[in-house]
């Protein structure tokens, strides 16, 4: 199929349909309204179902029911709405249901604003809801990658029977870029039939009970052990990242994800023209975080600079990876303000000439 200029939100909706998802449950919230709007007219065209739920609480429990019935399903929201979904996310993880949740992040806390942000990193990567659980988290940096990661997210969700977040900042949702949907895309994994789904019990398989309740301590502990074993596999097999300029020499390693990494890439290129050597490591999977890659890449730098649209969240994972072997610096914008290439480049210069203070207790 030829390239098409699409808004990120629309590309996400189209990618989900092409991934075989015929069900969407959601609730309006800026800046992701183009996802439900797009699907409200597209899904009926392909025999799918769009439901505008009464709330994010409702929507997140509708995807629980639909996923439990064995169908591919997704929802999307933005930060405050994702907070409302956290109850369901915990239940989805506990009941091991495959769903895709798109969060087009806006600035917080509270109602905050409708402008871009990356301040839901903790919520997405460290659980968010109650109990010991993890969700896969994929962070696109372009409209094309948003579409590709949505397709991958459905495969990963089904394969691991786990919720998968696609975490985009506001720019990803609003920006238009060329996008191509590959007709010949192959599933990432061998996906087994969903014999565990509740589809009506005819006696030809064990009764399907979609559930996260285990009143017996030992049974629940075993369930937790099983979940942790699954997360360990995910941490081993599903790490994704890209490097830019990591092959040559560099003094500063920039770690940034999402569209911020693109801003840093422009900064890096401008700096290189001036003889200042920086390189970028862009985590694509935020859970699992590319700890090994960051550690190895940081070992060749004099300092590490983390750039985020937050007060500093991913920096904690970078600190874990670098383990105090290199000074770590931080540049973050909040409130919906963006990082500009000039700003990022200026920060790199400050790091190199000693004007930037390293962060020790992020």
């Amino acid at each position: 199929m030829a390239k098409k200029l699409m808004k990120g939100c629309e590309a996400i909706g189209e990618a989900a349909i092409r991934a075989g998802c015929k069900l969407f449950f959601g609730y309006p919230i800026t800046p992701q309204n183009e996802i439900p709007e797009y699907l409200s007219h597209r899904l009926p065209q392909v025999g799918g179902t769009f439901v505008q739920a009464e709330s994010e609480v409702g929507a997140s429990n509708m995807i629980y029911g639909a996923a439990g019935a064995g169908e591919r399903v997704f929802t999307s929201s933005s930060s405050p709405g994702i907070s409302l979904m956290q109850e369901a996310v915990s239940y989805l993880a506990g009941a091991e249901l495959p769903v895709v949740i798109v969060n087009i992040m806006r600035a917080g806390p509270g109602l905050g604003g409708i402008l871009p942000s990356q301040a839901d990193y903790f919520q997405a990567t460290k659980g968010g809801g109650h109990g010991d659980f993890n969700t896969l988290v994929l962070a696109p940096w372009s409209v094309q990658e948003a579409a590709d990661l949505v397709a991958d997210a459905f495969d990963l969700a089904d394969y691991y029977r786990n919720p998968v977040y696609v975490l985009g900042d506001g720019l990803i949702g609003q920006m238009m870029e060329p996008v191509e949907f590959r007709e010949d895309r192959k599933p990432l994994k061998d996906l087994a039939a969903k014999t565990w789904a509740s589809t009506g019990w005819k006696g030809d398989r064990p009764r399907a009970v979609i559930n996260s309740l285990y009143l017996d301590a030992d049974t629940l502990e075993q369930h937790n052990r099983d979940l942790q074993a699954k997360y360990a596999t995910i941490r081993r097999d599903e790490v994704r990242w890209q490097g830019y300029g990591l092959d040559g020499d560099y003094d500063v390693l920039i770690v940034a994800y999402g569209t911020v990494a693109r801003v840093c890439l422009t900064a890096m290129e401008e700096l290189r023209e001036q003889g200042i050597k920086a390189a970028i490591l862009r985590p694509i999977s935020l859970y699992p975080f590319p700890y090994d890659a960051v550690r190895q890449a940081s070992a060749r730098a004099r300092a590490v600079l983390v750039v985020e649209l937050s007060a500093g969240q991913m920096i904690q994972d970078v600190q874990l990876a670098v383990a105090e072997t290199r000074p770590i610096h931080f540049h973050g914008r909040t409130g919906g303000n963006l990082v500009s290439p000039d700003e990022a480049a200026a920060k790199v210069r400050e790091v190199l000439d000693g004007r930037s203070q390293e962060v020790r207790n992020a």
Partner: protein
Amino acid sequence: MQHDMIIAGFGGQGALLIGKMLAYAGMHQGKEVSWLPSYGPEMRGGTANCTVVISDKPVGSPVIKSPRALLALNLPSLDKFEDSVRPGGVILVNTSLVNRPVRRTDLRVVSVAANDIANSLGNPRGANMVALGAFVGATGVVDLREVEALVRDTFARKPALVEVNLKALHAGFEAAGEQVKEAAVTPGSAGPNTAAE
């Protein structure tokens, strides 16, 4: 080579549409493109605007603080973005709705009265096409033929509108083109808006 530009005007003047058509045209020419609507603090101040990047290689930052070109469809847009344009860049001013001269002297200024031209063609709603044509003429960011093809596609179901809009597009292109030609023979004037990366 990278072209980056901000297109700004009142809501309804077609700034976002002009930006989209430039992005489409760039894409059809095989370039990498991004289109970012006013989303962020720059939304404040009564203008609708978008940032378009057209590049030979994958677009880095879709956020451009210092664009190489500005299309100011009205006065608030000029007030807001005049200082941000890169030295050596281009500002295209819609003088129908901008009643002051551009203060910057370190860049090239092209003035086109888009609304007046559209009115004179008997097509007041075609001011956006005049401005689009003028911007292409002033900057050369995309090939005019790609834009013509887009106009034909856009109005394919209303053939009557194809001709009037093409007319508006060409009128704008020529109005800007005359000034670019004049500028080209003036020693020391900035060249076309095509700074190398």
